């Protein structure tokens, strides 16, 4: 029982990292109807930005984290301004956006390899003690930190979407971009801000992921897990992505713990295929057929 609780906490912790990435992924998908395959690399670059900042003497780690998050937000905005916006506005099919994102993803991965090499880089930890013993249940302090920070950030994100005027504009653009424009909404501005937010979330995810598993050029593959999470929740739904992410994190740790860690990714991707086959709209999405 104690072991199960321990694993649940680990699962929720990795799930919360997935959730940070998946929610940004879902936001972009809801606005632009395309899978932003470069999102995982934004997460990776955020982690490297933070790592670079920690190399500066006397830099407090918290400030390095803020710099990492800011770096990821800027890179995400850069992708939008340099690539996606142009493709969108010259009337190309949506497929081009996805191809551009794949190109960016590979470019960033190789760039990271060239700049920092393939060796793992270590991020410092916030706490001296790495595990707490709560009545015989061992809980990683980094895990707890992940969960608490993600919870705060994601609640904030949902409040922004549901309560602010900006959030209303995001929903309007997601629903019908060209109509939103006629209502006086600057949709390019809304989209740019969403990329900044998604990038910041990815940067935070990269740092927390990096604290747990170190920083390396292919760590952006965690973006694939976030993709699975948002398919589980329903593509384009932010609450769906969050629920899907936590679910996926739990399933993965339980599979690793009770079956075999080698089967973890196999199960995750099988789940993806299964969802696509039986419920393509995910848990929170509108049924594709109902929509038509």
């Amino acid at each position, binding site marked *: 029982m104690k072991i199960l609780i321990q694993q649940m906490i680990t699962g929720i912790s990795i799930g919360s990292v997935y959730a940070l990435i998946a929610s940004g992924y879902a936001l972009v998908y809801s606005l632009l109807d395309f899978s932003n395959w470069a999102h995982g690399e934004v997460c990776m670059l955020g982690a490297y930005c933070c790592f670079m900042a920690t190399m500066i003497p006397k830099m407090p780690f918290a400030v390095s984290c803020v710099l990492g998050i800011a770096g990821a937000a800027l890179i995400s905005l850069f992708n939008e301004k340099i690539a996606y916006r142009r493709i969108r506005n010259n009337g190309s099919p949506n497929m081009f956006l996805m191809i551009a994102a794949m190109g960016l993803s590979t470019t960033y991965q190789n760039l990271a390899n060239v700049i920092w090499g393939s060796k793992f880089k270590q991020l410092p930890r916030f706490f001296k003690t790495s595990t707490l013993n709560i009545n015989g249940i061992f809980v990683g302090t980094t895990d707890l930190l992940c969960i608490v920070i993600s919870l705060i950030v994601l609640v904030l994100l949902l409040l*922004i979407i549901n309560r602010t005027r*900006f959030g209303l504009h995001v929903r*309007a653009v997601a*629903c019908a971009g060209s109509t*939103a*424009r*006629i*209502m*006086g909404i*600057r949709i390019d501005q809304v989209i740019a801000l969403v990329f900044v937010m998604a990038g910041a979330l990815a940067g935070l995810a990269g740092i927390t992921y990096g604290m747990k598993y170190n920083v390396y050029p292919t760590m952006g593959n965690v973006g694939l897990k976030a993709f699975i999470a948002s398919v589980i929740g329903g593509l384009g739904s932010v609450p769906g992505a969050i629920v899907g992410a936590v679910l996926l994190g739990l399933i993965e740790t339980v599979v690793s713990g009770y079956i075999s860690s080698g089967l973890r990714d196999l199960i995750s991707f099988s789940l993806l295929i299964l969802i696509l086959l039986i419920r393509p709209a995910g848990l929170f999405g509108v049924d594709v057929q109902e929509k038509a």
Partner: protein
Amino acid sequence: MSNNSTPLLEMKGVEKHFGGVRAIDRFDLRIMPRDIYGLIGPNGAGKTTIFNTITGIYQADEGQILFEGKDITKIKPHEAAALGIARTFQNIRLFENLSVKMNVIIACNMHNRYSVAEAILRLPRYRKVTKAIEERAIGFLESVGLADKADDIAGSLPYGHQRKLEIARAMATDPKLLLLDEPAAGMNEEESLELVDFLKKLHHDNPITILMIEHHMDVVSRLCEQCTVLDFGRTLAQGTVEEVKQNESVVAAYLGGEL
């Protein structure tokens, strides 16, 4: 700035080409404040294209568009609403997945009178402003008779109600000029007569000018003082509805059909 002798909207020699197609060709239009003006013509005549150039969705290739005497030829779509130009679409374009009320609230594009922090924490000012916006939105829904449907999903409304919601949403942007693209499309005679009364009241109750595209001649003749008849992007005739009905080229264009 603007007075009763300046047209609210003026188009001078406006042209829009798509490849070889002259969708509109040397088009002139003068609409005075408070007019209800009709734009008539067969399918493909270029009527919707005129709306699209006015609202900045298309850029005119030639000519000039003036609104209250100001050159708006090169405006961006999101600027039209702020200037006071609102429109509906031939193929209704609502935020289908959002509630009826939300559709109007989005259009009540009041300036940010609360900060993000105030919104997240639901501080008093946020509650006050959102309540005011909501009341305003309900007011517009009442004026089109949809207040009781405020919480329905817009896409689930019957066709006629969707048209009215689109008009309510356009009115919520507080327009000076309302562009209606075939508001009576798909309506039977009774419904279109009801629409005429509704638009008359709307025009009476609000300081708006209306430019409408319409096929139903009974609707046009009941509402519009003046109209322009268009065919293949060119103006065939301009004048009162009675005058244009007598016009030979108009009769020829319609082959004695609808008119």
